[in-house]
């Protein structure tokens, strides 16, 4: 996707579906592989319009080498709009959450869920072995996994 003259990678959610819900064990089993990224020098207004036009709520901020610098959530945007008089002049690096909590592809799902709930966050960038962003795990991904599990449990109960 081309946004202005700078490249912004944006894509529809693409979630792994290889395992039945009762078999999901690792972050890699349910994470969203395509992420929306911006670089730190993008303007705040670009982050706002990206999010207002589409359905995702999190943008990962990376450097040119793919190393994670921060995350911008819809919550960060709300806070900035409410508290910052000259928000038009801010750039992404000034409003992002720096050094966000992250997980690895092979982090157990229960650990990732506990992190999201206890830290009151809605997304965890997923890092590969080189520390590069390879996906994002959102509360929506987790809710989908739970919903599938609940349906399996319901039908299993009905069959008893």
């Amino acid at each position, binding site marked *: 996707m081309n946004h202005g003259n700078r490249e912004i990678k944006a894509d529809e959610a693409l979630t792994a579906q290889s395992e*039945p*819900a*009762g*078999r*999901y*064990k690792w972050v890699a089993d349910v994470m969203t592989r395509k992420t929306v990224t911006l670089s730190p020098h993008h303007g705040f207004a670009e982050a*706002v319009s990206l999010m*207002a036009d589409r*359905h995702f709520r999190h943008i990962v901020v990376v450097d040119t080498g793919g190393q994670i610098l921060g995350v911008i959530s*819809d*919550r960060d*945007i*709300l*806070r900035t*709009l*409410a*508290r910052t008089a000259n928000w038009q002049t801010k750039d992404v690096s000034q409003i992002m959450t720096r050094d966000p909590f992250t997980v690895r592809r092979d982090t*157990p*799902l*229960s650990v990732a*869920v*506990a992190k*999201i*709930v206890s830290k*009151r966050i809605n997304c965890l960038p997923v890092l590969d072995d080189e520390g590069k962003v390879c996906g994002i795990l959102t*509360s*929506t991904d*987790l*809710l*989908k*996994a*739970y*919903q599938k*599990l*609940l*349906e*399996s*449990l*319901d039908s*299993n*109960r009905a069959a*008893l």
Partner: protein
Amino acid sequence: MDIAAANNLSTDDPGTTFSATCVADIMSTHLVTLSAHHTFGEAVQLMTNSPFRHFLVVHADGRLAGVFSDRDVLRALGRTPNWQAKNVSGVMTHQVFTVTPETPLSVAASEMLSRRINCLPVIGKDGKVCGIITSTDLLQSYQKIQASLENHLGDTRAGSV
């Protein structure tokens, strides 16, 4: 066998996992509510000073008027030139999908996902608001059962691989 294992967790491992099945099992009954005539500024102030992202807007008789969420605030700030002049009823979501305490959790979760919302007001038999179920409530419930499932999967894979 994994689903069967999940169903049997409470009997296999006494005291470890209670598998929640309906809204009443995990809903919150402690509610922070707003009135429709609160100003937009008051509501935003309440939200930024609160851990909650959703506020039920309730009529004086206890019936639901709407839901005021952080998403509504974002939308209003982005699209409404005179947002300072609005009150809660001018910004809140009026057509709200609700559940009852007896609604299965699988239905609550799928409604949240398909409607792209994070909270469902719970309405009792008397037609009044009796609780709220949020995506966080669901994730807490998921965390418990998932942790137990992982233990079972770990045993299974260690034995078979």
